């Protein structure tokens, strides 16, 4: 992909981000109900309510609020949360590592499993393995996440007592630093069930995608040539066919990272995981405009940026795409 094309793609990304930001700003203001209802105590006098409105900038005309919002945004400020009275960016950044670790671990498990299983299913087409596995994969894709999460909780936590039922660390656990917390065994133990649930839910796409790509690739002439050359079946499948079938799976992975960041609301609620999804739910239910806007923007930005990355990576991996 030429640098001109990359710049053009980046320009499009920035434009879309601006549109999303603007839409989010106005959509939240169109919602019925005042955000102050969640905050104002009815014993406050009208004067005290006015002070609060002024403090949150809600006494300004809508366009002034929008202008200030965009100006702050360009300077990297997402405003102050109505509920928590803290900068939105710091609230979201505190939750982001938990969401990223959950998402990336799940995607890693899902795509590693899906790629291998997809390749295997293609290689064993028409066997009992395909007859059993394919419906199972389809079923796991159709399962509601909360149900799957509750089943895993009931088995591994409540019945067997092997894994904790919620949170990211044990009650009262202390760590010298945030990094020490994320790499601790305690954190990893807490990560197992939510990431496994999400991985089971996510593995269907890479498995089916890889299988269908492999079935196509296995018909290609270079595979026939490899067989003529007498290479082992393992070598043909994994070293020749699978590598060529991986391209769409890599694209799906990039998009999956983007969409999964915002798509963990259910998993995070089932496992009390302190991530971005739960912040989003709290913000929307509490009419916390700045926090909700910030959370949606972060999720949208992740999706848009990962789309852009996928485009660029795809063009780099397959130059035919860039030439089209």
């Amino acid at each position, binding site marked *: 992909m030429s640098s001109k094309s990359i710049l053009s793609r980046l320009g499009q990304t920035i434009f879309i981000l601006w549109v999303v930001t603007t839409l989010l700003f106005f959509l939240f203001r169109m919602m019925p109900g005042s955000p102050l209802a*969640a905050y104002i105590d009815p*014993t*406050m006098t009208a004067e*005290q309510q006015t002070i609060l409105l*002024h403090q949150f900038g809600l006494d300004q005309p809508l366009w002034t609020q929008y202008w200030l919002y965009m100006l702050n945004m360009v300077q990297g400020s997402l405003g102050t949360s109505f509920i*928590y009275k803290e900068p939105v960016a710091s609230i979201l950044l505190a939750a982001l590592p938990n969401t990223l670790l959950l998402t990336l671990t799940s995607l890693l498990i899902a795509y590693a499993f899906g790629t291998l299983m997809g390749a295997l299913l293609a290689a064993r087409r028409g066997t009992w393995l395909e007859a059993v596995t394919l419906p199972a994969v389809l079923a796991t894709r159709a399962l509601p996440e909360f149900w799957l999460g509750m089943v895993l909780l009931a088995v591994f936590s*409540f019945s067997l007592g092997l894994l904790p039922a*919620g949170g990211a660390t044990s009650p009262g656990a202390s760590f010298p630093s945030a990094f020490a917390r994320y790499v601790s065994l305690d954190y990893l133990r807490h990560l197992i069930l939510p990431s496994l649930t999400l991985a089971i839910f996510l593995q269907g796409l890479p498995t089916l995608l890889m299988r269908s790509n492999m079935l196509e690739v296995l018909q290609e002439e270079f595979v026939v040539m490899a067989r003529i050359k007498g290479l082992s079946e393992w070598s043909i499948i994994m070293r020749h066919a699978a590598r060529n079938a991986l391209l769409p799976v890599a694209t799906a992975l990039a998009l999956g990272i983007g969409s999964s960041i915002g798509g963990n609301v259910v998993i995070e609620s089932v496992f*009390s995981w302190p991530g971005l999804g739960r912040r989003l739910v709290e913000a929307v*239910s509490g009419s916390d405009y700045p926090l909700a806007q910030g959370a949606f923007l972060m999720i949208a930005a992740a999706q848009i940026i990962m789309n852009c990355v996928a485009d660029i990576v795809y063009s780099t991996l397959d130059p035919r795409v860039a030439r089209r």
Partner: protein
Amino acid sequence: MTLPQPTRRSLLGGALALAATPAHAADAGDAIRPLVLISKPQATDPAQYQAAQLCMQEWRKLGLKVTAQVLPATQQSSLVWLSRTKWDMSTWEMVGRPERSDPDELTYSLFHSSLAENGYDFVGYKNPEYDRLAEAQRAEEDREKRAALVKQAQMVIKNDQPYIYLVYPRRSMAFNAEVWDQSTIVEEAGIGIRNFWTFLNAKPLGAQKDMVLNSPQPLSYLHPVHMDPIGSWVSDLIYDHLMRVDVKGDPVPWAAESVRWVDPVTVEAVIRDGMKFHDDTPVTLEDIQYSFQLPQMKDKTPQFYPNVANIASIDISGPRTVTFKLKAPQSSFFTSTLSKIAIVPKHVWKPIADQLATTNELIENHKDEKLIGSGPFKFVHWRDPEEVMLARFDGHWTPPKLERWILRTVPNQEATLGMLRNNEINFLAIFTGDPQNIAELAKQEPKIKVVTTTDLGFQFIAMNLRRPPFDDPAFRRALSVSVSRKIMAAAAWNGFAEPAGSCVSAALPFWHADDSLIMGGDLAAAKKMLVDAGYTLSGGQLHYPPGRKEEITAG
């Protein structure tokens, strides 16, 4: 003042009368517009939603057209509190808090006419007779006489029915009896076992010395002069008060050795000797004085200002004595002020207040990272939204027996019960799912002990008295009489509720007027009351009394 007690014959007559109202009564008023009842969504509050459905079902039988408008909680609050002329009826709840164990807050604030425009009297109830009683109970020093006034006030409300009281919910909480000595877990009237006295006295039986509790939602803020329902559990342990509400609901001296009324507007408190803050500095009389001056900055601490608004001055009047001069007599002062205001270190808060004095920032929004109090627990960390942790303060004059108090946020209610079962939490502080599930769990696991308590709070239907036909007490009474509280408690609250008749919960028998209850469910009596008040049924629709026009457009 009591409601008429109709005889069997008059009831039958009344029922037939409304049904037999001439279809085209020439002198009937306008047809009553379709009315709207606001309710929270079923997913958020199934009991309130069900209650709204049950009420509407009965009111339609009276000839009313009633529809439900389902709104999320914040939108419902926004409409009801901030747009006071734009709604007809709404489901509502007043929650139980320890300071509400004194009846003054609810008796006075909910119905005093001075608070109808912008205050707590959001339905717009105005009755000079009620105002007189509410003011008299506030000024009355004699407890027995005051109780009589409070009960009279409840009976006035029974007659006027500005609210249709539904139930006092019964809340279930639980603990692991293998971890905690059952005899040290105490129930506070109207609050339950999740209370200060339990946290102070709970005695561990074995190696597990940490109390791990649950909350379905994270805290919004932790602050000595800013409270949210969950945050108040925590700040109550970090900060001491001159008095505390005991398990019976009465205020008792705490950080004060003794408190006494010198005259109807003067209170003298002798402060306990040798108290320390968590930063090891002594609690001085200047700290006590400043603790009550801080919330008096009404533009900086609006939430707590009402609790100190009646204080004219606070003086240090002896080596260990502070004297409060009140602007007017206030019988609830011990509960609503001395048991509510947190003792804060002046050396921490004065510099903050001085710094914020010239800005738009509120003191109540200032985030204090250290949260230094003088209470029996000291703050350790707040890992938002995962947990808040406190530790025993050994420098307290009554240190707790448990070591650490850890409040975990667990939004998944079913998982909460699983966690209680496998000891990830050992104290179920709140459960918003079906209470029957806790009872089932206790049957399966003998180590789990459940305590169910009638709440200080209550559930009701608020009617907007600014809008006809709700400006007519007879109409309101008829609506109230048609609703069965027994069915309400059984069907909407699954049996975990008690029929309610007043804003003073049955959990407070000393203050509660038993006669205030309208059990309801009597459709015939309701119809008769409407007929007696001049309402007529025409074409299946209820009409105003003769000559009365519909003033409001539906919707």
